[in-house]
């Protein structure tokens, strides 16, 4: 992308806006909302690795997310330090992801979706019912947020910047992943699994690695979640959460970098901001999803891009190319 392209300008402006957000938002409540959008966006980006690039739809990511949160929460409660708790949480999440992957990658399509769903429900069931281990419905409280390079993250802006750093790293790693040969091979397993196999690629291993990458970032976001709320309880691991993250990915647009971020923003804003003004926000959220699927089945970001191109072509050449008409599906 050239330095003068509109995309570069948009990117530069977004980065600038994100970096200065606490200054122009001011109210800590909205800064906190921004932090929430960012860490949910990390989960959505992580799930997108599987859904968008590997073509594997997981409904069990809430389990991985909660795994990180619970491991950290329980270790902190037991008196361990933040570093130990965080590392243990990531390791535990990676191990869980590996188990998830080994079991679920025996299948693709709906089978994969169902296995991940069931595995997620098992983890939820343990958090929910094994009260002597997880404190059940009462959840796990952690009293302090960590310090990061001497900065206390208790403050809303400080936590926002910490989250922004993680979010930035996640986006960069996703961008690298998408453009890398490995990313290409992941997409290959989505589109042409048999051909990839014939070409000598180990399709299973590629998918396994994609699952681990997805699990890693989900775990990182789970840590941010537990530090943000300083609390974790089984509801976080329920099917509802997995479904919401999947909705973020699909509504924003699978297989894009921006889509999951937009989707996360929609869901978080609906849940937290709009719910203060509209009592029936669940209804509105449902209607939004149905509308997106009915009018932009490919998701908001690719859909808007398509409409934009369509409008642009109409304006410039008055001869839209066949693939850009609304109604045609992207890809």
């Amino acid at each position, binding site marked *: 992308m050239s330095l003068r392209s509109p995309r570069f300008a948009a990117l530069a402006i977004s980065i600038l806006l994100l970096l200065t957000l606490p200054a122009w938002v001011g109210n800590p409540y909205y800064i906190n909302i921004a932090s929430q959008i960012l860490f949910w966006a990390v989960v959505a980006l992580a799930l997108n690795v599987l859904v968008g690039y590997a073509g594997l739809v997981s409904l069990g990511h809430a389990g991985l997310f909660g795994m990180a949160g619970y491991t950290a929460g329980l270790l902190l409660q037991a008196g361990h330090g933040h570093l130990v708790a965080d590392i243990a949480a990531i390791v535990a999440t990676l191990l869980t992801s590996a188990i998830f992957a080994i*079991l679920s990658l025996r299948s693709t399509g709906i089978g994969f979706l169902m296995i991940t769903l069931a595995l997620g*429900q098992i983890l939820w069931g343990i958090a929910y019912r094994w009260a002597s281990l997880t404190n059940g419905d009462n959840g796990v409280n952690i009293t302090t947020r960590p310090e990061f390079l001497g900065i206390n993250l208790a403050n809303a802006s400080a936590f926002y910047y910490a989250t922004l750093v993680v979010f930035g790293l996640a986006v960069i790693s996703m961008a690298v992943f998408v453009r890398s040969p490995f990313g290409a091979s992941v997409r290959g397993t989505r589109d042409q699994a048999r051909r990839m196999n014939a070409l000598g690629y180990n399709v299973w291993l590629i998918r396994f690695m994609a699952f681990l990458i997805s699990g890693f970032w989900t775990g990182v976001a789970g840590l941010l979640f537990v530090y943000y709320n300083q609390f974790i309880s089984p509801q976080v691991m329920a099917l509802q959460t997995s479904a919401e993250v*999947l909705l973020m990915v*699909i509504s924003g647009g699978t297989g894009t970098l921006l889509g999951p971020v937009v989707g996360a923003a929609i869901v978080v804003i609906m849940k937290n901001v709009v719910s203060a003004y509209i009592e029936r926000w669940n209804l509105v959220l449902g209607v939004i999803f149905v509308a997106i699927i*009915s009018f932009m089945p490919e998701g908001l970001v690719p859909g808007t891009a398509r409409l934009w191109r369509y409008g642009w072509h109409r304006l410039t050449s008055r001869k839209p190319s066949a693939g850009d008409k609304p109604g045609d599906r992207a890809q």
Partner: protein
Amino acid sequence: MNLWLTLAVNSIALGGLLFLLSAGFSLIFGLMRIPNLMHGSFFMLGAYFGVTFLDRGMNFWLAAIASGFAMALIGAMVERFFLKRLSGQELPQVLLTLGFSFIIADLCLLIWTGDPWQPTTPAHLRGAVQAAGMFFPIYRLVIVGVAVVIAIALWLMVDWTRLGAMIRAGVDDAPIARMVGIKVSQLFTLIFALGAALAAFGGVMGAPYLSVYPGLDAEMLPLALIVVILGGTGSLLGALVGSFLIGFLYNFGQALFPDLAYVILFLPMVLVLVLRPQGLFGKVVP
């Protein structure tokens, strides 16, 4: 009270209810390959319809059937106007059915409020069976009876009617079915409506025993999923056996291993998916 006997009988009773819930889900999933994540909402909405009809003084059976018809209509509309356009696209189907489940849940809260509704058991079905130190409500056994009747009716329909033959053809191979002139599109609408109606009927049958309240949808959906995965999608026999199996796992798991009750419920689903993805009674889809 004899614990083991009560648990065993209750497992069967719960199995009956689960069959009403999941038979439709199995047909929809098996034939249309749609992971219908609004099936729990059908169950709940149907139950709410039922309690409203009962509140107006309607006969219990009439209320259950009327609720089934109402839901069939709603199901058919959802299929015709929304799902139809998404055939074969699992992801948008997931999003759409989830979106509708949000909408239905919130509408129910709006209309029927947060209060739990529990209709009285119909007068002619009250009372209990007392045997071998066990005391068991007749009504729950009636549910099992109804489930068996419906199972037989569905089996007759699938195995012995022209419609059933079309359904079987559709389950086995939709493209071929289309080629031999089966109107798959209309068939799908019909099956979706039938599935919705069965869930709603089950919801009304379950209402005197489970009651109806916000969140019932989210409780029932995973149960329907497990039953159908265990039994095998598209297989009525599978749904029947799966229902009773889950009935037992649920009852004995909660009583014996409360800490691991949900592990006991979901682990078999994982095992079946991993070891025998077509389910216990499902056919291998090429």
